[in-house]
């Protein structure tokens, strides 16, 4: 039975209520200040916008422009002031309400640890990379001397038999290499329900009661052992905390795009994270990974029902993390993002195409939150605002697009149509349209300043804290900020157009393929030209029209149209690893781990010293499962006993076909059933080694295993 939530218990006892908790008072004050600042700034900017417009908001189009401008400027203003809060917190040496500052390091060190499961849900991920990541986390924990409190779970949702076999063999190698048998586990769901949250729920139903906490990792997550230990100690010290989220830093970037993202994350992320945390305090968001969760209340309060609305608001939840944080808050538990916890990492997608593929899923998932924002019962206001924040991350793009469309219409009307002196129906006096380009320029410049000032603040913070040397020195850090700003300006319109498409697709409830992420490949020219062609054509047509209409308007369109016209080459060039490495050698976009080294990264890239299956064989995982004696024994041990019934006959026919002709013409579903059947695995292994040399398997053995190529004669 689950204990009542701390806040509930306090209320029952007549103890301190929500308002009496010091951080809640601070949160109230800070949020009020933020709201006032954003409102004041937005109202002022909107006032100027109305003044800039020729009819001063007197037409329908201008009303639309004004409304969209207010929304977008408000959104930018929130980001700006969040960074401002972060700058103040950083300059003050941290937030006095943060969990880490409540306890001395010695006090935390004395705190005994509770049983914790480190879980890594995966779905068609690059197997080597995610298991090497887990290995690095394991070794790092081992170095703390506190490994015995932690178990590791690889939770696979993979369907493709080749991937499944690679995962199983990889898990065995990991156990061998780390001597982690009985501590590192591998679980694969055969029925994939409710995506990642369903995978975690499946783990909790089976083993949740064995552990006090779970540390959730993504396939590309890396967390230092000391960080995990400290998080569990904090959770033990603060029983009212349900979720403790770290602010993961991007690491291990190789392509140019990833290195730009990595630098931005490292240079600005701390400041923005500190700002966000100072506003959210104990009502922070959960980002789905690199966090420690108190299992008991999570199981009791954070089950995710399918949404019962319509269209996109009906069916399983796609983005679970924000909702789980909101439910934890609803149950009276606190959710904290602790930015003082270093040593928590993730990776960036290698290219903008991969980032957008991920954003497509996230856009739909975040839009689903609108349902809970509006109709979720007893959800705290701060968590509703977190929903809004997530929604606006994507919804701001179609708003921006609509703004550009309306501005284009307004300009066209102003240039081509006769002047309307009476734009309003009940107007006594004529309105003389006025156009003040200098005002417009001033407004545009102030918006740009608002967008870029957080970067300057972050650089200033690095300089004042003498941290620029960890980014290659003040000159290199400044040059990197300039370069990053240039790249982000080039990518902003590409993201805007793509996100607009995703939002439209989500609202129309176009179904999504939930695939694993690409974490390594470069983008070829052909793919870039095809994927970016619509954006290039639209932008080219728009810029051409603007030039024809009014050369000045053409100049105004350039910050958006030019990056879109250049979208394909930008995509290709940024995905290049060689350029990324060249920039690194030139001292640009450096991050602390690249200069100071990291044992975690060393472990990630270190060679395996496993005595497990021979990995040098140029065989597919399926072929290796049938040929290599060790691999075959591993998969056979993990497979199930033969099942009788009608399907058995079919399975026997499939394995006979596999033996005679190889696996190439066998559908994946049949292969998957084959590798799950212990008897078939052993049977095929036995016969393959006795296969004649001119058979499919005989040839594989001769050429790839025995190492004698050439024309096999009958034997």
């Amino acid at each position, binding site marked *: 039975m689950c204990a009542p939530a701390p806040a509930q218990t306090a209320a029952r006892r007549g103890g301190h209520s929500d308002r009496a908790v010091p951080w809640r008072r601070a949160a109230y004050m800070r949020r009020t200040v933020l709201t006032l600042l954003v409102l004041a700034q937005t109202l002022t900017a909107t006032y100027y916008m109305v003044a800039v417009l020729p009819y001063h908001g007197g037409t329908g189009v201008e009303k639309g422009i004004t409304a969209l401008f207010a929304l977008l400027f408000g959104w930018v203003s929130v980001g700006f002031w969040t960074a401002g809060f972060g700058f103040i917190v950083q300059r003050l040496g941290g937030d006095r309400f943060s969990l880490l500052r409540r306890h001395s390091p010695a006090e935390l060190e004395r705190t005994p640890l509770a049983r914790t499961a480190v879980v890594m849900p995966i779905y068609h991920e690059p197997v080597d990379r995610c298991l090497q990541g887990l290995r690095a986390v394991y070794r790092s924990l081992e170095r703390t001397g506190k490994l015995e409190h932690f*178990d590791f779970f690889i939770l696979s949702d993979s369907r493709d038999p080749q991937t499944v076999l690679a995962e199983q063999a990889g898990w*065995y190698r990991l*156990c061998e290499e780390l001597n*982690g*048998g*009985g501590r*590192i*586990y*591998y*679980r694969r769901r055969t029925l994939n329900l409710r995506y990642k949250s369903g995978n975690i*729920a499946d783990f*909790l*139903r*089976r*083993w*949740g*009661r*064995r552990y006090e906490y779970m540390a959730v990792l993504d396939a590309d997550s890396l967390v230092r052992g000391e960080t995990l230990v400290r998080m569990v100690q904090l959770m033990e010290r603060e029983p009212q905390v349900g979720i403790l989220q770290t602010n993961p830093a991007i690491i291990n970037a190789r392509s140019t795009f990833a290195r730009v993202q990595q630098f931005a994350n490292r240079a600005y992320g701390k400041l923005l994270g500190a700002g966000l945390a100072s506003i959210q305090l104990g009502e922070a968001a959960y980002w789905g990974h690199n966090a420690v969760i108190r299992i008991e209340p999570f*199981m*009791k*309060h*954070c*089950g*995710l*029902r399918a949404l*019962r609305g319509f269209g996109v608001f009906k069916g399983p939840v796609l983005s679970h993390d924000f909702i789980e944080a909101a*439910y934890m808050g*609803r149950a009276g538990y606190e959710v904290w993002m602790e930015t003082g916890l270093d040593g928590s990492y993730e990776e960036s997608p290698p290219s903008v195409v991969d980032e957008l593929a991920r954003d497509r899923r996230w856009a739909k998932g975040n839009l689903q939150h609108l349902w*809970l924002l509006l*109709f*979720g*019962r007893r959800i705290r206001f701060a968590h509703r605002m977190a929903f809004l924040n997530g929604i606006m991350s994507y919804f701001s793009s179609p708003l921006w697009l609509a703004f550009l469309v309306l501005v284009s219409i307004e300009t066209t009307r102003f240039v081509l149509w006769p002047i309307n002196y009476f734009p309003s129906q009940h107007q006594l006096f004529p309105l003389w349209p006025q156009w003040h380009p200098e005002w417009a320029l001033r407004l545009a410049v102030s918006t740009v300043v608002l967008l870029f000032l957080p970067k300057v603040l972050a650089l200033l913070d690095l300089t004042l804290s003498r941290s620029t040397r960890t980014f290659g020195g003040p000159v290199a850090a400044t040059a990197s900020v300039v370069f990053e700003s240039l790249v982000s300006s080039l990518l902003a319109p590409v993201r805007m157009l793509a996100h607009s498409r995703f939002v439209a697709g989500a609202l129309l409830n176009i179904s999504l393929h939930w695939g694993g992420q690409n974490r390594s490949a470069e983008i070829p020219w052909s793919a870039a030209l095809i994927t970016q062609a619509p954006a290039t054509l639209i932008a080219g047509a728009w810029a051409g029209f603007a030039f024809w209409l009014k050369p000045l308007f053409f100049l105004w369109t350039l910050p958006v149209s030019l990056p879109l016209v250049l979208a394909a080459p930008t995509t290709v060039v940024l995905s290049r690893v060689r350029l990324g490495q060249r920039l690194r050698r030139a001292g640009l976009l450096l991050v602390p781990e690249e200069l100071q080294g990291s044992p975690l990264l060393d472990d990630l890239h270190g060679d395996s010293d496993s*005595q497990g299956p*021979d990995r040098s064989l140029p065989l597919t995982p399926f072929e290796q499962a049938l*040929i*290599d*004696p*060790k691999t075959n*024994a*591993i998969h056979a*041990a*993990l497979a199930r006993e033969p099942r009788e019934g009608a399907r058995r006959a079919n399975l026997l026919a499939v394995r006979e076909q596999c033996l005679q002709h190889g696996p190439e013409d066998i559908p994946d579903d049949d292969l998957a059933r084959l590798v799950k059947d212990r008897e078939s695995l052993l049977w095929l292994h036995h016969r393959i*080694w*006795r296969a*004649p*040399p001119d058979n499919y398997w005989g040839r594989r*053995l*001769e050429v790839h*295993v*025995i*190492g*004698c190529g*050439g*024309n*096999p*004669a*009958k*034997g």
Partner: protein
Amino acid sequence: MIRTPAERALGRLTAYLRLAGVAPTVETSRATVDAVRAALDEDGDRVLQHTMDQLETRFSVPAVDVPPQCPPMTRGSIHYESD
């Protein structure tokens, strides 16, 4: 280069033993050659199969000790609150 069935059987058995983790000692080499010779004596046309059939009797192939895939289950349930 065309190889004889005996050469092929020798190569296949050696490869199997290497992959299975059998130490390549003089005794192992001698037993491998003996297995091929015995297979030739038994049935020259099916030397490959007969050679591989002697794996279990002539060699002690190390067993693969597979660790537990999952810990024992401790069933729990997820609670769902209505919105």
